[in-house]
């Protein structure tokens, strides 16, 4: 799943997202628009989104790295998920 969405109508080609990304996801296209060329390396730190002056970037909250494994998805655990909305606080 693609974690980064860029609205090219809003992107002004300033390049701040290229600086902001610690894992070097972005490149600039020939049309001077930011492209998340290495999006699969995104570690969801949101710095590009924060630094974008035009609000053109949206980063998903969901961790998309295929390396990230939830402890709760490991087999053999007896888990009892609670529906808190059914309970009063």
């Amino acid at each position, binding site marked *: 799943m693609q974690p980064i969405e860029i609205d090219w109508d809003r992107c002004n080609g300033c390049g701040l997202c290229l600086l*902001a*990304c610690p*894992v070097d996801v972005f490149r600039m296209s020939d049309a001077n628009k930011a492209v998340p060329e290495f999006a699969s*390396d995104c570690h969801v*730190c*949101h*710095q590009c989104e924060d*630094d974008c002056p035009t609000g053109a970037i949206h980063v998903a909250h969901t961790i998309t*790295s295929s390396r*990230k494994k939830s402890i709760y998805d490991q087999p053999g655990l007896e888990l009892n998920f609670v529906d808190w909305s059914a309970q009063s606080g």
Partner: protein
Amino acid sequence: MPWPDIEIIDADVLVLGGGFAGSWAALRAAEFADKVVLVDKAYVSRSGASAISGGITTCPMDGDDLQSWAEEFISRGSYMCNQDWTWQLLEGQRERVQDYVNWGVPISRNPDGTIRRFASRGMINVRGMQYKPKVAIKELRSRIAARGVSIVDRVCITELLTIDGQWPTTAGICGAVGFHVHTGRFIVFRAKRTILATGMISMKGTHGVDNDTGDGVAMAYRAGARLIDMEFTFGGTFSVLMKNMHFPSYNVAVAQGARLINSRGERFMTQYDPQRLERSELSCVVAAFAKEILDGRGPIYVDLRHVNETYWTDILLLNRGNNVLLSDRIPNPRETPLLIEPTWGLWAAGRAGLQIDLKCRASIPGLLAAGSTAKNDATGTHASAGAPTAFCYVSGWTAGETAGRESRTCDLPDIDRATIDALAERTFAALQRAPNANSADALHDRLTAMEASLINGLVLNDGRLRAMIATVEDVLADMNDTKALNLHDLVKLHEVAAVGECARLVYATALDRTESREQFYREDHPEVDDDNWFCWHGTRRTPEGMTFERIPIPDKPGWLKRPERLSGLGPIAAIMTGRPEELQLH
């Protein structure tokens, strides 16, 4: 050295890594040296863990009784500290906090305008504050630039240069080599003094700080620098909500009243650490989490229904903008507890790293270290909320001053062309290889898969450690025939080498330690063994291979005396074997 085909950048002081430690080092070094060069794999002020950290740091101020703070750091650190460093940290940090105030860095305040201070996690006397790290680090970058420091962004350093052309070296370090990650330009940095500040060791996909791959620690190890307490690298925090979303900061949340509850709605930490509860040692909270799950009381939820109102206002003011807690992607956290889990794996935060002295000098000439690349001797085995960042500032400042001063009394070394050519060839070798089934990503996947199990880092034993070492050695062997498809891929392949080398030496050092202590738990050696292991544990590469040392912790006049020897189960052993009452002994 007229080599027109190779770019050589000379420096009095070369700083590798542009997070808090490296930035403070460069700022301070520039007061003493003319030519300071700061290099980062990413962009200085947006790289590593600094800008995206939780924003808590230790906050000593004029009028505080620092004796009680020092005693708390030293006792929580199991007396495995250099107590002179503890004082240097507290006194230095008082100045650094004042710098932030003077620079106008946003800091959480009380209604009367004073800095709002709170008990740091795991602490009773020591106080921390919350500030906006992105602003602090950006301010540092502009001050460094204004001082004339030459900032070199997007250069991946691949090896330290040694004076004698030997790895390991006894002669010393005289710079580093690397390549620009976009242009592929090879650069030789020739330096009188080199400061390593490349941050923590973490496997990609584990902690959300994927460019901190232990590059500096791995290079220093290859060059023969002594590393300390590498088995205490294991760490982490509660960082994942609802199985796949980032939880912004556990430390901030529990400082403001967040609770952890199990599937029965019980605040289970009352069973493990009734005094400090969720603010206990992170390793104890994580072990308690694991124990609750293994005993069928999982999953675990974070309950934010009772936090102080300042928690919600500070999120808006100080944290990074797009916070999942304020989004519509999760149930309303003011009404509903949220599924939470920790990450646990290679994550040192100062408990392990290069051995440094009070001046931040490493064990080989010409090399210094600061921040999470160094072993934080001020707080020993304990890394409380706030202390790791405080150590970044103060050790950075100190390393910068030492390197700057020392650079005035030495000359730039000569470097040997054949050595440089060999390093250049090795740096780019993977681009020339034939493709095979391996890839940099697949190699990272194999390393990270070991950390998918909480138990692999928390419950160690001889067999598990040997299996993990074998896995790493397989990955490192496969790396040697893996092709880099492009420069971006080449960076990731060098990161496999770094994090793999670090993992191998962490696991090997863990195998050498035949006891349990603090967050380190050997299932096959569950008891604390003070007779053999109240010491610093050194790991060093010598011509004979990986060598371990036990370095006595001195008992200096004026230092706080350790009241008693420890015995019995280590704290994680006490939790995991269902005897939490014994946890109180430590």
